[in-house]
């Protein structure tokens, strides 16, 4: 639990990858259906990459890996909704 942060911790990398602010974007977990804003995802950032998990069911919903200065974002279980 000590290393658990939230989507705010990877906001810069997400902005760099998507070209826009992502913390207030809603994402729906494909595993349990919970809708969370990216800022509220449980993020484990002390790893070879950042792993974002659903705050309700713990499923891995997003993985961010930086390779050669470029942030690659994978969305194994997150359906991002268009911001209002």
């Amino acid at each position, binding site marked *: 639990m000590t290393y658990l942060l939230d989507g705010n911790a990877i906001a810069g990398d997400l902005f760099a990858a998507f070209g826009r602010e992502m913390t207030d974007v809603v994402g729906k977990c494909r595993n349990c259906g919970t809708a969370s804003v990216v800022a509220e995802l449980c993020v484990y950032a*002390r790893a070879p990459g950042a792993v974002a998990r659903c705050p309700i069911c713990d499923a891995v919903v997003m993985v961010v890996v930086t390779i050669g200065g470029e942030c690659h974002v994978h969305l194994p279980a997150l359906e991002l909704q268009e911001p209002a």
Partner: protein
Amino acid sequence: MARAALPGRLNWQLGRVVDTIQQTHRAKSLVLDLPNWPGHRAGQHVDIRLTSDDGYQAQRGYSIASAPEDDGVTLTVDRLEGGEVSPYLTDVVEPGDEIEVRGPIGGYFVWDASLSGPLLLISGGSGIVPMRAMLRHWAAAHPPVQVRLLHSARSLDDVIYRDELMRLAAFDEADVRIALTRVWPEGWRGHRGRIDREFLLGAAWAAKDQPRIYVCGPTGFVEAAAAALVENGQRPETIKTERFGPTAG
């Protein structure tokens, strides 16, 4: 005060340290001059990047401690013993040094004076940094909104911006309450011990007053405070959280 435009690209730029201020024995503020700064919103943060002579790089996020109205961009660094970056920033960096900065970042944990209140800020330890930006913005913008800060620290000596908070508390519409968890001065009339459900019941506005709530600090603190607020009847959608902690090995 116009809302800062969100840039389409988040570029690294070089900021020059123009001042450093020791806040507590552990916390030090760095004031940066960033020539290409687009402005920011209270609550946002920056990423900073350090490069050593062998090409090794380390990157960390720091909340902006200054208000949009302030000159320069201030970061307050909590020195973690054995850390890779924070001891460098507090012990080595001096005015004149340059640091790569990327920002402002954040679209969720932000507060503008145009938002309705009352405004309830709950922080633990270094979680007070983005709250300071919000409080300074509040003081500069004079919105018709009441603000209350509930802050938890180990001791009075660990309260960052202590004098500034006391000056702010002198405003009619502002209220600052400090909870000391480990040691408190004789005759201390603030809260003794952790911020818990009972303290929040007495110190927070009732849910019917529709407070806008921000909680920031270590993960354990944030989770406990948010859970207690919800147990006390606050609506989860009115609570915004930001967790602080070490981000690299």
